[in-house]
């Protein structure tokens, strides 16, 4: 609106009155609000007009006027030069009429002539001509009493967020101020008069606000910035969780994400998932079995690879508890600076989240944000299993081979394993025929009928439903001068693809800020999270199950399939002996129990800032997290597992007519209650000192503090048997007898007898405490040269640790140079708007942490107490983790060079970082010499170097009033190499080597394979050894005969997004990509070269197996096939197979490795904002509708149809893809 002023004089007058302190007193709050809205909307309407008119004007004046008002002259000059005049109507009252004649007179000369006889003078600055009253010497002397005045104000963005480190220029002149963390600025010593405050902030339009400075000026000026048309958000300030620094003053490597894009990613309620492809250096892996989030490659293998999540200054374990809608700002800290600030836990990168704050001096603003994301059903057909006709004919073919029947004789197959003998319907038919029980015709007829049945549709219908995710968040913000609040309520409903499951999440988040006085402010963040979920009995049914077994009959009744556990004849025997029904019906089974979970977590964070003396202040942050979760898993009396267990602990009656002896309750089910309680607290006290020399030659920030944290987690699990959910009672069992084992039961639960270990109550507790001291400093000289340093020491209650693994200080140092502020750039290369160089170096590390689990190693042997009923006292101690006395600290030295730039009128901007991370004493599972008594233990494996580049470049391709188009490329390139391995006895075995991911001289997660040479005349795979010899002998290959195939961690990853805006439409197209990985294929699926192909391979309820990959039929079958296939022959007898050949030669053959590269069109997001005119009628600020299509298109380098995002490269197995081609619709309303 202020800009309009220069185009429309009448508005100027009105504007100025609004900004005088006197009027404010009389205007009510509501009026103020109304006016603010008007200003906002009018600004939005005219902002483009200004942009257009400000360009392409000459700087000379041709004018001839007689006795014309000064104002008219101004208008003429403006139209000729594009220069604006800034003045107050009052000033012109004393102006004399003008008579002037000019022909192509330069502007400066013209102005000089124009003002020569006026009581006014002028000053040209930034295409604006400021009109000032000529000082009258006498008046000044008389009014000497009026002291210089301090202008105070606050800078916000369109959402009301306070902007830190915005530059506020007082025009005319070159006085500049910067807003502080609360968005406040003050400019002292201003002479009374009319000025313009010109506020600039990267990513926002420059805002010019006229102010009249008078002796009675006390009001706080609020300046609202509007984002630049391209909505580009750049890093201008950095919040590292401890402090907020101006971007210019930090040498560290930080990345911020465009929150607008994050907001539009309506696919997940996980903040990190929403950052996919947006943050350079951060790789989000959705593949099963992979590390979910990796920043800049791996610097650790066995220590935690998790990023450190810091929310409002407090470490949070579960980032899911943060509602992405509450997030103001996310910063990823990537280099050594991060670690030296946050300590040893930060070596994998730190994500600093700042939540939204209330508005000071603002009425309540309400915002609604909601979406529904329809994710569809999992694509189970992705798994290449056979359908019925192929499956049955394959089975027939196998049984026709006498070798198969010899390897899997009827008695052999009909073998009991813990009371189970599973024979699938097709097997039963085939055995019946080969045992001479039925004719060939009968067999064929029976098998044909199985061939004709296909259960795929039933699996899809019965075991899956359309998954969806929906969220509704309502937030309010507002506040007075001394108190402000942001609060939100959120409801998330996750509908999984499993029928019967429920998952509802409730969040309430509130941030309150209190200003006690000029020196003391405080805040309180309260985040409450509640989650309720429930599920039926678990079952995992895919097309791995035999393809002919239906789940429902023609009448819709669910079908029983007790054969999954045992033959009908055996079941009849067990049932009669035990008197217990042992039928199994998978569909009914789902309802024979329920798992419920209720979880609550409260995050309470309070902070206080007290100014002590000049730039010195005390800051305290106090966090408390309390969480509890209760899970009840109930298996009812009807459930198969309860019935089956009861039968296993039943001793049949020895004489007819008497009852069997039951060792477990005959009535009631089994209830497992898991309670998890956690208490975390953090206390941080720090002193901070800020000093800025008067002319900003020196800027110094010092910080020193102490932090103590405690995280306590206690879990207890109790199991009640004979539980009746109605009477809430359970029944006792004889643990001593059950523990030692019951013999002669109906069938044994273990190999020879039925044994049940005590499980009625279990409790575990972990308590990890840390005590840290830290300090850091930032010094900036001439606003151009910055020196950073930080140091930190962590101590923890590490258990089983040698002192050498503790007390290692970590530190970092950095330099930054604001090159664009240098004279030679400003003068000679004006197209460079921003150019900064950064360098950091530092040491960080991972302690071999033990507090949460034992997986990362210990210096001492750690023992576990466990029940041993056979020992006197019933307890024994065993070694749970073998101590490695040479275990030492894992240390990473990181060097980072970065450049940030913005050129060509901000059309091209970005940053690029190059880093080198040298990690020594990598903690990992290392093979241990067999003579020690330990096979593998955690130790210091070796050294790894990570080298990489990550960067983000944004280009504003087109920017016009109605249309803009920008492109952002996020790219991360990381290569690593294991430079040293401290394995005393290197692996020479090929088989051991195949499972070793770490090999000296190669990248981490190296994949090795055999040089496959095809099949021989028996269909056995052959390989070529290093010496050129071709062999199929099972033990022929040694480690040196393996070929390096690549690494399964992609080298080159990132995202590519295009944002287009046409009028009120916003379209963003985001792609993610990954190149440079090598994956291993699931050759023939279950590796079924030799084993019996049972209907099931697991006796755990709920798992359905038995099918084979279609590729199985392309195997070698007869002599000559070796010329057409590489898939080995099937040899039924495992001993015959393993003594003749190694099928691993094929499974790990080089032909089965493939390029894991892919590009995925992650999402297409279309948003439409209701035009302002309509919005006004709705009395709202903004109403936007969004539609998102996710995972739309996939390009992949492999021709196996494998989506690398759903491939476990370790096992070589594919997982069922979920949430592909999902669609989300959402809306956002602000008023």
């Amino acid at each position, binding site marked *: 609106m202020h800009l309009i002023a220069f185009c429309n004089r009448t508005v100027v007058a009105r504007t100025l009155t609004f900004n005088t302190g006197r009027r404010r007193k009389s205007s009510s709050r509501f009026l103020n609000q109304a006016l603010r809205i008007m200003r906002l909307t009018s600004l939005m309407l005219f902002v483009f007009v200004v942009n257009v008119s400000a360009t392409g004007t000459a700087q000379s004046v041709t004018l001839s006027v007689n006795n014309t008002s000064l104002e008219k002259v101004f208008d003429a000059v403006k139209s000729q030069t594009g220069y604006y005049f800034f003045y107050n109507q009052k000033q012109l009252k004393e102006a004399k009429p003008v008579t002037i004649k000019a022909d192509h007179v330069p502007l400066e000369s013209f102005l000089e002539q124009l003002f020569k006889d006026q009581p006014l003078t002028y000053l040209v600055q930034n295409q604006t001509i400021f009109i000032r009253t000529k000082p009258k010497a006498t008046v000044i002397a008389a009014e000497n009493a009026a002291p210089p005045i301090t202008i105070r104000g606050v800078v916000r963005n369109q959402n009301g967020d306070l902007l830190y480190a915005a530059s506020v220029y007082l025009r005319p002149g070159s006085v500049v101020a910067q807003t502080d963390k609360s968005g406040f600025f003050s400019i002292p010593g201003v002479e009374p008069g009319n000025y313009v405050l010109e506020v600039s902030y990267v990513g926002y339009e420059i805002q010019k606000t006229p102010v009249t400075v008078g002796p009675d000026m006390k009001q706080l000026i609020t300046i609202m910035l509007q984002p630049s048309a391209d909505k580009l958000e750049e890093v201008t300030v950095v919040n590292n969780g401890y402090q907020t620094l101006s971007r210019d003053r930090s040498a560290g490597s930080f990345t911020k994400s465009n929150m607008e894009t994050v907001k539009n990613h309506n696919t997940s309620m996980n903040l990190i998932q929403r950052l996919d492809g947006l943050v350079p250096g951060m790789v989000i892996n959705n593949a099963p079995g992979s590390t979910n989030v990796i920043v800049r490659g791996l610097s650790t293998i066995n220590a935690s690879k998790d990023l450190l999540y810091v929310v409002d200054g407090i470490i949070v374990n579960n980032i899911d508890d943060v509602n992405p809608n509450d997030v103001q700002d996310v910063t990823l800290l990537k280099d050594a600076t991060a670690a030296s600030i946050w300590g040893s836990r930060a070596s994998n990168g730190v994500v600093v989240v700042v939540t939204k704050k209330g508005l000071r001096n603002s009425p309540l603003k309400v915002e609604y944000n909601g979406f529904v994301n329809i994710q569809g059903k999992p694509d189970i057909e992705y798994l290449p299993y056979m359908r019925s006709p192929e499956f049955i004919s394959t089975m027939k073919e196998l049984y026709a081979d006498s070798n198969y029947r010899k390897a899997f004789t009827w008695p052999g197959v009909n*073998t009991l394993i813990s009371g189970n003998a599973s024979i699938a319907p097709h097997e039963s038919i085939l055995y019946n025929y080969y045992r001479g029980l039925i004719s060939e015709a009968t067999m064929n007829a029976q098998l044909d009928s199985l061939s004709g049945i296909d259960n795929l549709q039933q699996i899809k219908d019965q075991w899956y439903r359309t998954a969806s995710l929906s969220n509704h968040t309502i937030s309010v913000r507002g506040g007075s001068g001394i108190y402000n609040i942001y609060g939100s309520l959120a409801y998330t409903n996750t509908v999984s693809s499993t029928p019967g499951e429920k998952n509802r999440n409730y969040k309430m988040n509130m941030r309150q800020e209190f200003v006690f006085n000029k020196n003391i402010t405080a805040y309180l963040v309260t985040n409450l999270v509640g989650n309720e979920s429930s599920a039926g009995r678990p079952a995992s049914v895919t097309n791995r199950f035999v393809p002919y077994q239906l789940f429902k009959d023609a009448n819709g009744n669910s079908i029983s399939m007790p054969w999954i556990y045992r033959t009908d004849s055996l079941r009849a025997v067990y049932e009669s002996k035990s008197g217990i029904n042992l039928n199994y019906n998978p569909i009914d089974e789902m309802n024979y129990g329920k798992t419920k979970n209720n979880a609550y977590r409260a995050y309470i964070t309070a902070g206080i800032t007290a100014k002590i*003396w000049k730039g010195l202040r005390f800051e305290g942050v106090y966090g408390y997290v309390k969480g509890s979760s209760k899970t009840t898993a109930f298996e009812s009396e009807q459930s198969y597992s309860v019935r089956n267990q009861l039968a296993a602990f039943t001793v049949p009656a020895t004489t007819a007519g008497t009852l069997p002896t039951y060792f477990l309750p005959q009535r009631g089910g089994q209830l497992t209650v898991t309670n998890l309680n956690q208490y975390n607290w953090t206390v941080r006290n720090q002193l901070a000192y800020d000093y800025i020399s008067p002319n900003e030659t020196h800027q110094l920030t010092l910080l020193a503090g*102490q932090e103590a944290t405690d995280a306590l987690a206690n879990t207890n699990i109790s199991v009640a048997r004979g539980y009746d959910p109605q009477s809430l009672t359970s029944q006792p069992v004889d643990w001593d007898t059950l523990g*030692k084992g019951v013999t002669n039961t109906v069938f044994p639960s273990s190999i020879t007898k039925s044994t049940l270990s005590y499980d009625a109550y279990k409790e575990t507790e972990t308590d990890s405490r840390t005590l840290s001291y830290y300090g850091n400093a930032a010094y900036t000289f001439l606003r151009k040269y910055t020196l950073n340093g930080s140091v930190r020491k962590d101590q923890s209650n590490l258990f089983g640790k040698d002192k050498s693994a503790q007390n290692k200080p970590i530190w970092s140092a950095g330099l930054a140079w604001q090159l664009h502020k240098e004279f030679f750039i400003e003068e000679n290369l004006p197209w460079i708007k921003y150019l900064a160089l950064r360098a950091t170096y530092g040491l960080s590390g991972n302690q071999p942490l033990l507090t949460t689990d034992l997986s990362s190693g210990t210096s001492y042997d750690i023992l576990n107490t466990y029940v041993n009923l056979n*020992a006197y006292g019933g307890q*024994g101690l065993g070694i749970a983790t073998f101590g490695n006395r040479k275990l030492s600290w894992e240390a990473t030295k990181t060097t980072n060079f970065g450049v940030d730039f913005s050129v060509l009128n901000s059309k091209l901007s970005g940053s690029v970082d190059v880093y080198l991370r040298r990690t020594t004493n990598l903690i990992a599972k290392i093979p241990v010499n067999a*003579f020690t008594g330990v096979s593998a233990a955690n130790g210091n494996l070796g050294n790894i170097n990570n080298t990489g580049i990550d960067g983000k470049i944004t280009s504003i391709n087109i920017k016009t009033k109605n249309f803009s188009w920008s492109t952002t490329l996020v790219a991360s390139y990381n290569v690593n190499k294991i430079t040293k391995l401290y394995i005393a006895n290197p692996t020479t*075995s090929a088989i051991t080597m195949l499972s070793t991911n770490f090999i000296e001289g190669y990248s981490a997660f190296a994949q090795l394979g055999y040089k496959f040479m095809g099949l021989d005349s028996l269909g056995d795979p052959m390989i070529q050894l290093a010496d050129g010899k071709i062999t199929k002998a099972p033990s022929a290959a040694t480690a040196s005969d393996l070929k390096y195939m690549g690494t399964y961690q992609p080298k080159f990853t990132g995202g590519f997004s295009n944002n287009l805006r046409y009028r009120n439409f916003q379209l963003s197209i985001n792609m993610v990509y990954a190149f440079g990985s090598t994956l291993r294929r699931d050759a023939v699926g279950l590796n079924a070269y030799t084993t019996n192909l049972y209907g099931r391979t697991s006796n755990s309820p709920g798992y359905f197996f038995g099918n084979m990959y279609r590729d199985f039929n392309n195997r070698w079958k007869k002599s000559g096939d070796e010329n057409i296939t590489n898939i080995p022959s099937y040899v039924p007898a495992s001993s015959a197979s393993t003594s003749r050949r190694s099928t691993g030669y094929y499974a790990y053959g080089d032909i089965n490795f493939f390029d894991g590269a892919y590009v995925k069109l992650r999402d297409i997001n279309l948003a439409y904002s209701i035009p302002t005119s309509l919005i006004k009628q709705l009395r709202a600020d903004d109403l936007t509708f969004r539609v998102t299509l996710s995972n739309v298109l996939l390009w992949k380098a492999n021709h196996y149809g494998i989506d690398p995002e759903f491939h476990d490269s370790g096992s070589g197995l594919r997982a069922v893809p979920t949430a592909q081609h999902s669609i989300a619709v959402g809306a956002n309303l602000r008023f």
Partner: protein
Amino acid sequence: MKTMQTRNYIIGLFTITAVSLLGSCSKSFLEVQPKGKVIAQSTSDYDMMLNNAGLVSNGGDVSVPMGDEIIAFDNYFTSAASIRSQRLFRWDDDIYDDGIFANEMATLMANLYTCNKIINEVPASTYGTDAQKQAILAEARVNRAYINFNLINLYGKPYNAATAATDPGYPIVTAADLTATSFTRASVQEMYDFILKDITGSIPYLPVTIKSRIRIGKAAAELLLGKVYVFMAKFDEAKKQLDAALTDLASTSSGGTLTNMGLYDLNVTMISGGTWGWKANSATFFSGVPAGQVNTENICWRQSGTNYWSYNLSEYTISTETYNLFVSTDKRLNYFTIRPYLESTGTYPLTGALRRNAPSFIQNGMTMPELYLLRAECAARLGDTTTAKADLLTLRVKRMSSADATVPTGLTQKELIDFVLNERTREFALQGYRWFDMRRLSVDPLYSSTTYSHRLYGTSGTLTSTFTLKPERLTLRLPLAVMAQNPEMENNP
């Protein structure tokens, strides 16, 4: 302004206090003992470690297929038996492919780690009396001796006094240290000396009365020492220890609710309608034999993992010759069945080819039958026929009809020794004991000329293959995977 200064002063004071409070309590703040996890410190911790169930188990089934009392049937052997089973039966050079570690070695080595840890650390443990510490130390040392005795008999040549000092044995590991990388094989003599030292140095400190069969008492240690001497062919030394064991056994009790040590009378328990619920000709496993921890024949309970060759694997039976060693009233035959596993009607095609179907674990610790049999052998070797016969009778009357139990008269010394050795076969057939006897007999002048062979039969009972034991295969080769870790070490030929 004054109030302001005061307030600032207060804030400063508060800060300093808060910081210093944290600093001063930092030491105790970090010194919390995490729950549920223990670092052994007190004497009772080490005592509890001896209650470790892991100490009971070993991979003792490895020697079952190598004994000469068994034969194999092709229809179960070639097509269904594991590659390990086949290679053991054929006495192949390498049992395991490269990259595969031997369970029998790994389980013993893991237990050795526990023993070494106790031995090295218990003297400095807290809250225990010297006597308590000495008793724990002694028990751990006997455990170590038991482990080392098993290892040297798997991987070292049979003890031969003439060559033991130069025969490559097994590394003597005394540290519980997983960072150790350099191991050298001690000679067979050094290993035996080490074993003897561990046991003899410990016996005085061991309790006569034990509280559970997991733990080692004096009688168990004496029995083990006697057995070691027998394996060194020092029969008089052995007999002294075995005598002492029997004496101590009189007052040894397993305590609590367990019945005292003693032999079961199979004439009562192991018959149709007997107390263990046995039935003839079963095609499945017989589970009525008391489990190891309550089995009164165990003086110290040590056992193999499941012995599948007496549970559900059908490839091995005893040979006709072995069967012929039994008299018909011998109830130990009831541990066998004529049927392959789950064959409700089928039988093996050879007479006397019986499959073992109980118990599922091999009791290979210190047992009552072995005590009597070892003492009988020593007595026979020393010419004490009376004692030898008496001990044999003690065992035999619990195994068969009293008429058949009597040891025949008029046996020569060699025949008596043969009789004892055959009694060992009858008692322990298909339980892996025979392999260790074959080893020690190979260096016994009385038996060293014996050659051993294994026979494989076809479906109809025809002999299809015969495998002959090479002398060097009396010693197992160290697994290739272990050799790969220790390239400096020389493997057995």
